[in-house]
């Protein structure tokens, strides 16, 4: 029996390593694996049979459970673990997914190259070395693989362009600067299956003729960096990296560049600038990186998830990949399901599934039994999709038609308590801060959009503000230099498109329909319901509530800071929020 602890960043944050230590203390020799994607159940401990069969998946494991686990291991009586075993319902989270990019995540030990090779690792690389680069590119073309970082540009096309560029020196770059709030699939891949990334990158490097590969990963991902460093060292030692790989003519070295975490550095030309040691600001395109990129040499950039599909495609054939999905979108896509969802985590599904399938069948619907209002897809560059459009397919074109984008796959679920103006403001606050400051439309445009949204949420919106927002959004989309600015208006435009009534309520009636905008809310106490228990008065951080015991209390609206604590603690439902 093998006891395996899920130690991705999320698992560790939930206490997985403490569980690991307790297990050790209890006399077990646990192994680790990466992230299986079930964030809502971390820490997770898997029990495998010696034959490699998953016998039990234990969830929300606490260090105190170690003794029981040790007992179960010793006695073989796994029924001891029934109380912490995953429910069938929760297990459905995984069973409805199709895992390609995440195929090894939460399954193998990411720190051990042998675990990867035992699971079919580096076979694709061997296969590729027997093919011509053109044949590899053709296979990728057949697969229909498109860039998973957001833009969805055909991967083969970029590879081919870089292949066609004539130069002695070419670079292959992996964009691991995952910056969308709420997206963490790339981190999971690096932490949980680093060799899959290395193999995918090597195949790319071989195809375009690059002899140097760089992974640009944000410094906020320390565990990913460590695991990738280890993996690179192991791969070099095993002859998968370096000079004359596996005895072939193909040589390629690989290194990691830790980025300082500017969102714009996820934009490929800004990433190149940063890689060159300059300020992270986008360059004009053309020339495209495939023509003149890093160090002015032909360069190809793909993101982590894109590379994570490559070895599978080579092993299984482009056709097998293309068999999944829709006419325009092939294969699978990983989503980071977050927000007001019951089962949040990483979800990999074939293209062509509906949003509803993901939210309800996999995600289990809305937490707390509330109404689902919308999802924000594609992070700050994306848009919202209202619940009445949840039949929309996961497909680049279909999603774009709604005003959202596939993006990198951040899927934030919102229930009826979320103010959509506030949501747009949240994302604009992000993009305005992350704007590099180079082009006018983005630097000042996002700032002004944010200011207008801010005044609307504070009850100072002006007549005509919706039109002004729309006009400014369109101009920013048209005028901004890079993808950051060109897509920054999307959250505003799509919320105006689907939730215009909420904007109007804020502007015309100075009212936030969800009550989320603190400036537009007043708290008062219903004298008929209040029993004078004094609890609210005690909780109030600014002493805005007065009243004697057993008599109705009163809120001084001048003092009230609208923190909502009174409403939260009241047991008689006497606090009225308007």
């Amino acid at each position, binding site marked *: 029996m093998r006891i395996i602890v899920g130690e991705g960043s999320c698992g560790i944050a939930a206490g997985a390593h403490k569980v690991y230590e307790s297990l050790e203390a209890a006399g077990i020799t646990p192994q680790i694996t990466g992230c299986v994607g079930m964030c809502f159940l971390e820490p997770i401990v898997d029990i495998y049979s010696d034959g490699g069969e998953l016998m039990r998946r234990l969830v929300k494991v606490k260090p105190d459970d170690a003794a029981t686990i040790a007992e179960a291991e010793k006695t073989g009586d796994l029924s001891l673990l029934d109380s912490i075993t995953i429910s069938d319902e929760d297990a459905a989270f995984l069973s409805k997914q199709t895992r390609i990019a995440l195929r090894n995540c939460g399954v193998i030990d990411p720190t051990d190259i042998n675990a990867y090779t035992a699971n079919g690792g580096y076979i694709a690389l061997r296969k590729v070395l027997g093919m011509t680069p053109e044949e590899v590119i053709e296979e990728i073309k057949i697969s229909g693989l498109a860039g998973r970082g957001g833009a969805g540009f055909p991967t083969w096309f970029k590879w081919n362009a870089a292949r066609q560029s004539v130069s002695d020196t070419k670079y292959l770059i992996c964009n691991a600067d995952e910056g969308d709030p709420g997206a963490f699939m790339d981190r999971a891949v690096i932490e949980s299956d680093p060799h899959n990334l290395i193999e995918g990158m090597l195949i790319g490097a071989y195809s375009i003729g690059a002899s140097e590969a760089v992974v640009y990963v944000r410094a906020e991902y320390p565990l990913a960096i460590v695991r990738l460093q280890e993996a690179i060292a192991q791969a070099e030692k095993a002859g998968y990296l370096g000079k004359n790989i596996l005895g072939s003519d193909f040589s390629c070295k690989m290194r990691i560049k830790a980025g300082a975490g500017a969102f714009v550095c996820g934009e490929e030309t800004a990433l190149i600038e940063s890689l060159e040691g300059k300020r992270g600001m986008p360059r004009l395109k053309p020339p495209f990186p495939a023509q003149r990129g890093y160090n002015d040499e032909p360069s190809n950039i793909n993101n982590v998830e894109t590379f994570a599909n490559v070895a599978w495609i080579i092993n299984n054939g482009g056709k097998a990949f293309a068999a999944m999905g829709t006419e325009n979108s092939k294969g699978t896509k990983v989503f980071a399901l977050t927000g007001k969802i019951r089962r949040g985590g990483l979800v990999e599904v074939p293209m062509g599934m509906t949003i509803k399938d993901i939210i309800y069948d996999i995600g289990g619907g809305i937490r707390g039994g509330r109404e689902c209002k919308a999802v924000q897809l594609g992070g700050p560059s994306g848009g919202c999709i209202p619940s009445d459009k949840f039949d929309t397919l996961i497909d680049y074109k279909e999603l774009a038609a709604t005003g959202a984008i596939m993006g990198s796959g951040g899927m934030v679920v919102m229930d009826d308590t979320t103010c959509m103006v506030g949501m747009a403001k949240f994302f604009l606050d992000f993009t305005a801060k992350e704007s590099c400051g180079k082009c006018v439309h983005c630097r000042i445009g996002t700032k002004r959009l944010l200011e207008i949204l801010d005044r609307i949420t504070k009850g100072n919106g002006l007549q005509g503000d919706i039109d002004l927002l729309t006009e*400014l959004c369109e101009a920013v989309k048209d*005028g901004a230099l890079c993808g950051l600015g060109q897509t920054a208006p999307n959250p505003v435009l799509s919320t105006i498109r689907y939730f215009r009534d909420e904007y109007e309520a804020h502007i015309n009636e100075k009212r936030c329909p969800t009550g989320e905008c603190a400036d537009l809310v007043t708290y008062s106490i219903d004298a008929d319901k209040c029993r004078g228990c004094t609890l609210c008065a005690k909780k109030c951080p600014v002493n805005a509530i007065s009243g004697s015991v057993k008599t109705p209390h009163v809120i001084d609206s001048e003092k009230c800071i609208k923190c909502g604590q009174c409403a939260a603690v009241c047991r008689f439902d006497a606090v009225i929020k308007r």
Partner: protein
Amino acid sequence: MEKIKITINSTECIADKGKTILEIAKENGIEIPTLCHHENVKLYGACGICLVEGKNMPKLMRACSTVAADGMELYTDSERVKKVRAVALELLMSDHEGDCRGPCTLNCPAGTDCQGYVKQIAMGNDREAVKIIKDKLPLPASIGRVCPHPCETACRRTKVEEPISIAFLKYFAADRVLADNPYVPEAAPASGKSVAVVGGGPAGLTAAYYLALKGHGVTVYDAMPKMGGMLRYGIPEYRLPKKVLDAEIAEIESVGVKLVNNVKIGKDITLDELRKQNGAVLVAIGAWKNTGLRCKGEDLEGVMGGIDFLRRVALGEKVDIGKNVAVVGGGNTAMDACRTAVRLGAENVYVIYRRTRDEMPAEKIEISEAMEEGVNFKFLTNPAEILGENGKVNAVKLQIMELGESDASGRRSPVPVEGKFETIALDSVICAIGQKVNVAGFEELELNPWGIISSDERYFTTSLEGVFAVGDATNKGASIAIDAIGEANKAANVIDGYLYGLDTPYTAPVLSKREPDETFFEQFEKAERIKMPVRPAEERKHDFKEINLGFEECAARKEAARCLECGCHDYADCKLIRYADRYRIDTCKLAGEKHECFTERKLEIIERDQGKCILCNLCVRICREDAKQGIIGLVGRGFGTVIRPEFNKPETISVCKDCLKCVTACPTGALKLLNLK
């Protein structure tokens, strides 16, 4: 070299393959605006101003960086392009605080570049100064003497001690150039179009001058024997000598304006005839009728209107006013009348004014000079009745007044003190309490309820096609000369467009404004305003010779050097403001948080103004790529991005090679070369 063919705005362009859209447009004389592009540095693409649209191309393209492809059909000014460009400019202007023009210029109804000519005078370039002035007003020596100078009212030097003596500096420079070698610009080639101007006052002459410079045949018709209007017949000789006015009118004549006097419209020629003979008619007939006193006895012999009185004196008529004269009113006409009365030999000259000295609308200097000349001011009095004998004035009964509540204008209203009167013996009463328009001959034109010609504020059009009107005869009625001159200059542009069938209304230029805080003025050393030397009262009160003696040259240069130079030094060359004006930007539309305004002056010879910086990054790029220095860069992100290190850091100063490439490249006035003594 392989060639490609593209079209830009339907113009076919053949160009070398590999060239950018911007380069090809430039070769073909098509201007595509850009703020951040510079030939000496690498492509950058930040400003978003050079965007162009291509047929069947979903995205707009940056002309600076997009290499043209054969067959492209491009539009540099499509609606979509204009919109995006305008928003970029609105965004830039929302974070640009520039003081484009000084308060003097902004407050001058004619928009004269006061700062510009004062600077030229300070540097000793009087001719340059006159050139600048004549861009807006063709009578600088005359106006410099008589203008109540709203420019000086607005002058920020007042916050240090006193305003610059702008008007008299103009008079100084104009006199010198007039005496030396008059400046008359060359007129454009004849257009073959003609304009009739009715009224040879400041408005009519101004319009005639600018229309003639544009090549049009202009004839000025005037009812009086000589040109000049109120400048000649309303302003006494001692303030504006006729020979100065004559010289300036001669200059106007010399650009080709035809001057015809003693012509009354409706009598000698009709408006209709003028319309038939000319492409356009401009009515600038002024306001030549006195407002009556509306009290008993105003019909008595010896009661006359202020402007009638001044006109008769100017015409050389013998006006019998007797020894005791009262002038009613508190404005500049009243001052001209009472001081003229003194010069005609009256022994007792009274000014009857119903409020106090503080409320008088006349120029302060006029009041004090009148007092020096012995005029007796009867403040807080109002004529209740003019008394007479045998149909002739012999006294006035004055109602004693006191100041009551403030009225809408903020002035305290005079109210009669019940039953208190004073009677003074008089030979004549001159009423200078207002002017009306005499519309005889122009009955066809639509009038406003006050009997004044209605004229459009942007087009200066009247109710008759092809007939324009400006000055005292229009809208709000009588005002100061510079007001009429301003309108006339604007109307000349509108009429010029009209003659060619173009729609060219006057539009106020788009500007950025800044008001420095009080601490700003602390840096300046106090330097007193230089007073205009005048002849002593005892001497001057007996004749009509000019009372001002004029500035000595060194005094004028010193006075001009007091100018704080509030307006942006780069206004004429600022690309941002030029584009903002071209696209008629609403500078407040996208108002929001701005960068703090401050200047960094310590770098020996360059001053950097954060308020004006539009972050085109040209200074940084020029310094790095062209000057090979790289001593400045960008710091911060998003809206908070700024250029650093500060120009005043010692380490920056020590490495800067003073090549000034950054100053030259800056598209706005954010970088300024400091004057080195």
